[in-house]
């Protein structure tokens, strides 16, 4: 009996828990719940309360909980023409939320946010392609920030997508939209690589030429300065030599005392100086002192 009582207690506790779980449900702050009765939407609960909500068990009532927080997704990286004929790949991210669960729920099977995002993606991508085509590339990529219209283009895409959503009455609103990525098709990317390579090569060649020119300038300046210094030195040397010659000239009157001797001495000095090396002299017997050979044994 005691054993059965315990079994009954355990069974009763489990049954109570099971029944409570079947007849009640909770809604979190971040959720909105849609209650359907035999498939018809009968209740929308947007805020939680201090105790659980009641419902009839499945299959009479079903509770669909939807996330009412801002949800985000990003569309595909798609190619489009800009107004100036450039091929540009763009991708945007979108923050959206359910503003009207009753309007949202029947439009997407079971309140599927995946289905909602698919619909949103179509709308947003169409708006994006349309707006990108209205602007030249320079308004999306430009070194001059004044010519950029990045924020304005984002706002245009968002406004166009929001207007389309309002027409469809999906119970969805777009909270924010931003351009997440810009890119170029593969073939254009390769062309950009080629151009970047050419630019770099040009810059390298320019630097090389600059180096050579600078070196040449430095060398020629140095040569000029050296020439100046040497010329100055040569001039000064000439002056020095001249001053020496002046002093020597001042002594010439001393030789005037006996010009014959002075000229003879001068001739001797000249002779000595001019026959020091690499000189071939041919004497005959008339030349002093070789005249001493005259009448010798060899002439016999």
């Amino acid at each position, binding site marked *: 009996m005691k054993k059965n009582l315990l079994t009954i207690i355990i069974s009763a506790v489990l049954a109570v828990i099971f029944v409570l779980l079947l007849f009640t449900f909770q809604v979190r702050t*971040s959720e909105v719940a849609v209650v359907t009765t035999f498939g018809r939407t009968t209740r929308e609960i947007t805020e939680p309360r201090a105790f659980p909500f009641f419902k009839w068990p499945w299959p009479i009532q079903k509770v669909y909980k939807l996330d009412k927080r801002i949800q985000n997704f990003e569309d595909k990286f798609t190619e489009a023409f800009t107004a100036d004929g450039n091929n540009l790949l763009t991708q945007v991210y979108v923050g959206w939320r359910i503003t009207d669960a009753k309007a949202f729920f029947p439009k997407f099977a079971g309140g599927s946010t995946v289905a909602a995002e698919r619909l949103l993606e179509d709308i947003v991508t169409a708006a994006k392609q349309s707006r990108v085509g209205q602007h030249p590339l320079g308004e999306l*990529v430009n070194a001059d920030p004044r010519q950029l219209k990045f924020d304005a283009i984002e706002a245009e895409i968002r406004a166009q997508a929001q207007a389309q959503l309002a027409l469809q009455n999906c119970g969805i609103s777009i909270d924010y939209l931003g351009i997440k990525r810009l890119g170029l098709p593969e073939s254009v990317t390769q062309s950009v690589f080629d151009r970047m390579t050419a*630019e770099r090569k040009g810059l390298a060649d320019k630097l090389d030429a600059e180096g050579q020119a600078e070196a040449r300038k430095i060398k020629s300046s140095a040569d000029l300065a050296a020439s100046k210094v040497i010329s100055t*030195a040569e001039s000064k040397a000439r002056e020095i030599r001249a001053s020496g*010659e002046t002093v020597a000239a001042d002594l010439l009157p001393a030789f005037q*005392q006996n010009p014959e*001797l002075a000229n003879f001495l001068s001739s001797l000095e000249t002779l000595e100086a001019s026959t020091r090396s690499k*000189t071939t002299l041919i004497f005959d017997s008339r030349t002093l002192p070789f005249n001493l050979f*005259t009448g010798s044994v060899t002439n016999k």
Partner: protein
Amino acid sequence: MERNLQKNGLVNLVTLLLVGGAVFGLARYSNVLSGQVAAVFLGLGVLVAFVSWFQMRLEDRERLEKLELEEMARSKASATLFEGKDAEVFPAQRSREQFEKFFVPGFTVVLLILQGVAALFLWRWLAKVLAPEPFRQEMVAMSLFALLALILFLIGRFSATIARLENHRLLRPSANHLLLAAYLCAFVALAVAGVKGEFPNTDLYVARGLVIVLGLIAVETVAILIFEIYRPRVKGRVARPLYDSRLVGVLAQPEGLVATAAQTLDYQFGFKVSETWFYTAFKQAARWVFLLQLAALLLSSCFVFVDPGEHALLERFGRPVAGREVLNPGAHLKWPWPMDKVYRYRTEEIQTLRVGAPEEEDEHAQKVVLWTVAHAKEDNFLVANRERVDAGATASPEGRKTPPVSLLTVSIPVQYQITNLVQWVYNHESSSNLLQQLATREVVSYLVSADINELMSSARQEAAMLLRDRIQAAADAQKLGARVLFVGLQDLHPPVKVAPEYQKVVSAFHQKQAKIIAAEAEATSTNTMAGAQALALTNTAEAERIRLELTATARAAAFTNQIPAYQAAPTVYKQRLYAQVFPRAIADARKFILVATNTDNVIQFDLQQKIEDAYIEQVGAAITQPKK
């Protein structure tokens, strides 16, 4: 009286088939991973139940055949009938034997392959599941799983009891599979409840656990097949079916394990331990223990221990508890689950997201990171190029325009911390994802107006600070409740295909510097040498001047002194001076002295060339041998 158990086998088969289909459909619809794995167990159970049922039919046919033969033998109507061969006389027995000999091992091998492939496939499949999809109609799913568990348990228990009482080896495998499936369904229901509670990964863990069990069963099947080869065949001894897993039996009827344990204890201690007061009391109190465990489990959900570095959100029936929305690290009390629920977050942890190319697994292990070597998947961003803006677009080989932009490979780590947990959790469905998108957007919008060359050199640090501020502002505008701590632009470089050209520019710059430095060195040398040469020139001139002056002075003085000697003997003095100077003057000169004067030979000297000795000998010979 022997019961016909074929019907039980068929009921088991049909139950496994129907419930298996229901479990699979329910699990797929509700996105319950463990339910899908349990469906595989049920599928394998269907195969086993079918084979065992078929084998039962064969045995039944054999039994009927024997009965008929015994009847006929008793009537002795035709004794000759028993003189034929066994195969002719006992076709049903022969069929059963052939079935057990060939089909059963073959089927067990197939079963093993299916178990192994299923375990492998399911393990890989679960490994790919990082974040399980949210459940659909989880309360309904949980209830149905519990209901299916009950159905399976009742039928399985009934079959298992009959199999045990009748000692029917062929009914046992399907009964075991029914009971195992019942427990699995109960586990699946508990896993769903766990996910509904505070343990979001329960379903995944249970699913993985079930896959491990499936793998163990496959290993056991391998062992059974190996042992079967060496098993001694004793005629008349009935063997356990090969496909009847002992592991499945133990899991399906764990009380058998307890009984075995009790028998082992009895044997070890030498007396009936299982009949002692302690063992009996423990057995009787088992239900209370179970109830106490349930109560303890429920009570344990009243305590929350928030770890250091964490904060937790406390919700009561889904609504933040006023004044206690965020629980700080430490111990806290709360109402039991499911009234109060706690959601933990690592708020103080510095988290990192990446803009651009994701970080490679071995990136941190790389010691050297070069622009020219791909160290991560490249993600190229458009960058404005100030030098090319005015140049306009050019055409690519495919006819597409090449816009005046450059590309930059970007992999930017953004480090952040959660500062306001309520905002972080309640404002956005995926705040970390949003922060990633905001950061990427800010990087893109910054780069489209930044100059690539500046960005990679002087503006890098400034850009990092600016980007951090802009991402922070964007996060604040969206009320993310996060603080951006750091934005790193260290991995910002030209694409790998172009990077070598950038290095060549740097190389060219250094070569330019080298040329300038070499020219400067040469200039310094030239200037220094010019200075030295100038000094040498002036010094030489100075020396010459001094020599000239001194020589002139000395010569004048000597001349004054020579005058008296000259005046005294002019001819002699001159002759003496000549004699003194002449040898000295011609000392180094080559000298030819033509002494003979009485010849008429004409001698020609080529004084432009060096006069060879042979030539002199020739001249000498000409002199000594005059022409006739």
